[in-house]
Every structure is written in C-alpha cells, then in structure tokens.
C-alpha cells in the first residue's frame, strides 16, 4: 500500500450511471489485476474503494457506478483535480492458475477489474472468453473494449434487450480451463454453485479502512477469517463458505 496523490486525466460517462476515470501519478504500488484503490473525497469521512480496471506506466483507470453521494461527487469531478488515494490494496487475481482457455465472468460494474486481467491473459497468449451480464441494453459497457483485446465476448441481459436473455449462469460455455468472476454477491453465489471447475471470485463489501485495520469487511472462509480488503477481495472457489 502507498499513499499517492493522483490527478484526474479523464472522467467521462460510459452509460447513464457508469463512469470511467483515469488517474495519473505514482501508481507503482498497483501490481496485480483485481487490486483496488481507496479514494479520499472532500467532505466524506470514509474513503471510496474502487477496483482498478487497467494500469499504465503512470496511470490507473477505474470504472465506477454512481450509487450514492460519494460516487455522485466523483462523477462531477473535472480533469486536473488531485485526489489523495491509497493505492495497491487487496490481493488481486492470481492469473497463473488460468490455464490455456480461461473464462472471465462479469456482472454489471463487476466487469471493471476483469479488463486488466483479460489484457494480461491475452498478452500471455491465452484464449480468453469473457461472459458479461447486465440488466438491460442501456447499461452495457466495455464489450467493444474486451473484443478489441481479442477476447471472445458473450453477452446476457436480464430482460433480453441485448445478447442472450437471462443471467450469466444461463450462458456458461461448456469448455474452459478456469474461471475468474466479479459481480454482485447473488451472481457470485450462482456462479460458485453452477460453474464447473476451479475459479477465483472477487467480492465487494462495505469497508472502513480498506487496508486491514478495522476488521469491518471480514468474512468466514474454510481457511479461517479473512478481511476482504486485505486477504481478499479475491477468494478461491474452494475456500468460500456458502451453504448450498
């Protein structure tokens, strides 16, 4: 973890509620896809933890959904503004387990951290399939970006307005070597239950500090208590403790 002062280079809407923000500065602590950063906002006591969607030499990109006052405040920010950010938080995905044909499953804004992972896997020569689920056509983002990486990109919408009708679990491909998933907890639970083979799932929780001090985001796993902010946000399928 590192405290960095990052400058907003870009902050633009992708849909009515999802924004893309690119921040420049010292991002050396951000090392692994699936890690997150924690942004301090004026007038808000707690920081806002947001997963990293991509990383460049001196920049990170985050995709965020406006869900409350903090993210509303972020959506109104202009390029040039400097933010106090804790960078390089969480464990991130372990891409070494991916095999040759990994499947990446994203639900809504959960697609965000999968982009950097998909890029790294493609650069490592993997055949990547991306399965994205959204509520409706107007909420879709980043399918073109995933396709541009050379990923086979499958799409579902709950109302059938684009792609296949249904949830991601209705469209799971048969053949893949390993899976990585990020999305709302009901989606993760459905994937954990129905996707075959091994995988890694990235979780979201309300956090206090984001760096392991407050125990606010703990969960029980087969391998003991874990802090989603520190030993997570990525857990391996086999360590997740959910009742069937």
């Amino acid at each position, binding site marked *: 973890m590192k405290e960095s002062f990052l400058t907003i280079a870009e902050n633009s809407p992708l849909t009515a509620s999802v924004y893309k923000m690119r921040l420049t500065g010292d991002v050396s602590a951000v090392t692994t896809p699936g890690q997150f950063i924690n942004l301090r906002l004026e007038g808000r*006591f707690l920081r806002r933890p947001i997963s990293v969607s991509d990383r460049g030499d001196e920049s990170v990109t985050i995709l965020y959904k406006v869900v409350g006052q903090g993210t509303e405040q972020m959506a109104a920010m202009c390029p040039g503004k400097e933010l106090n950010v804790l960078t390089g938080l969480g464990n991130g995905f372990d891409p070494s387990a991916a095999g040759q044909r990994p499947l990446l499953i994203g639900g809504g804004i959960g697609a965000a951290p999968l982009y950097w992972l998909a890029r790294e896997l493609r650069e490592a020569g993997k055949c990547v399939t991306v399965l994205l689920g959204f509520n409706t056509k107007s909420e879709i983002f980043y399918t073109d970006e995933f396709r541009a990486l050379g990923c086979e990109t499958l799409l579902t919408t709950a109302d059938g307005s684009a792609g296949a009708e249904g949830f991601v679990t209705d469209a799971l491909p048969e053949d893949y070597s390993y899976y990585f998933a990020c999305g709302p907890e009901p989606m993760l639970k459905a994937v954990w239950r129905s996707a075959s083979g091994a995988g890694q799932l990235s979780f979201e929780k309300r956090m206090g500090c984001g760096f392991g001090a407050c125990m606010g985001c703990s969960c029980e796993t087969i391998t003991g*208590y874990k802090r989603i902010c520190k030993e997570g946000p990525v857990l391996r399928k086999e360590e997740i403790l959910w009742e069937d």
Partner: protein
Amino acid sequence: MGRLSVNLCGIELVNPVIPASGTFGYGYEFAELYDINCLGTFSFKGTTREPRFGNPTPRIAETPAGMLNSVGLQNPGVEKVISEELPKLRKVFHKPVMANVSGFSLEDYAHTCRMLDRVEDVGWLEVNVSCPNVHGGGMSFGTDPASASEVVRAVKAVTAKPVIMKLTPNVTDIVSVAKACEEAGADGISLINTLLAMRIDIRSRKPVLANTMGGLSGPAVFPVALRMVYQVAHAVKIPVVGMGGVSSAADVLEMMLAGATAVEIGAANLADPFACKRIIEALPAELDKYGIENIRDIIGGA
C-alpha cells in the same frame, strides 16, 4: 523529558498520542507505512478469552463527519494474541503496549488479564466495559457503577500492571461510573467508547448495519467526548485518557486542557493511515502557536 512527554500511570510516554483499540489492529499494517515507534504507545485490538468472528456484515456505515461500526470484537483469542500476534508486534514496536481486554463475565476478564499480566511488553491493561456491539457483556458492565467496580476488583486481583477502565458514553451519569472504578482501585480511566447509533437505507427500508445498531465515532463525537473527559477528570484523581473524534494536534491540546493525560486516536486512523504520525509531527508547532513549553503543563488547564 521532552516537551511532548507525559507520564501515564508511572510509565513515561514520549508523547501523549495513542492509537485507539480496534483501529490499529496489532500494529503491523501500520508498521508497513511508518515507524510506529514514534507513538506514545498503542492500544491493541480488543482481546477476549475465546476467539471471536464478531457480528455479521455489513458492519461499517458512514455518517456525517464520522462512521458507525458493529464489528463486535473480532479477535483470535488471548492465547493466539500472546503466541502469534505479540511476537510479530515485538519486531516492529519496542515500547510497552496497551493491552485492550473485553469479556462476557468477571471470570473472562480475570482470565484474559491474568494471561496478559505475564507478558512483559504489556505496559497497561485497558479494560473495556463499554463495547456497544456485543450481547451479555461488554457495555452492560460499564453502564452500572456496581458492575464496573466488580470488574475492576476482579482484574486488579490478577495483575500488578496499571488497569485503565475504558468507559461507555451510553449512560446517564458517567461520573458515577468513573468514581466507582476509582474507588475499586482502577489506576486510570479512558473514555469515550463509541455512542450507540444507527442508520437506515431508505431504498431497502432496513438498517444499514446487519446488527441494526453500532457505535458512532469520528469528528462528530468530539465535543461530546470532550465534555465527558472534562466531567470525569474533574471528579477523579487518577489519570484520564481522552478519546472520541480526535483528528488533529489542536484536538489533542483541547482534550488535554479538558483533563486528559494522554489522548487516544481512533476513527482518524481508518480515514488516514498516517493520522497519528501527522498529529505527533504537528504537535511542537501547535505548542509554539499557543506559547506552551511542555505539553504536560496544560493537563486539566481549562
């Protein structure tokens, strides 16, 4: 003695700044960021006889100028704290540490304190009779002067280390609880723990915290904490450790003017992991600003 040093129950602190229990873990998350030996000391994560996961999540919520928590004393239990956490801490922190203890019965408190009494690095026992997030213990001992004094006696019987009783603000008369602790033999009082509070999600029409209620901390509670520290410090002769929403060097001076010998800093560490270091570094200039030579000279000066 430096100009920032204070004496807390016979142990000298290089400065009065103490990260509060539950906001600093067992120290090593912060030791990755800065040398935590700059601290006066710190109060480690509330420790109980048995391991605890705590309450279901969500157990954190934001509030205007503060936060709620209903963590519920997650900790690995006193045996593992002594065998695993403290040896790790020893590598990064070379001063007496404050051991924060919670319990669900007098026997629990006595057992945990007896075990921690044998640990050389433990300088003080801070006995929490004020956790609002557990049932059948915690705060129930701190809301009644007679129960609080029973805990003091049970703990004093098993330790020679200074015992600081950490009190809850969720009472009608904090002075009577503090005086009962003093009469029962407590060596110090620390206050305030969090204020019982809640928030509701309008969309779901449900409480934000899975445990319905939690404890409010952060700058929002500072004036309430200051008032209670002032009341208690004027009523007892033993040292008082002030806490509640402290987030700047100026807040530290205010707390000490109210009567605090040392000052704990809690929620501020979660919003800014460097909060304590920055406050310590800002203290000399803050003293200069008000023409104060030594910080200990202002204790109870208001």
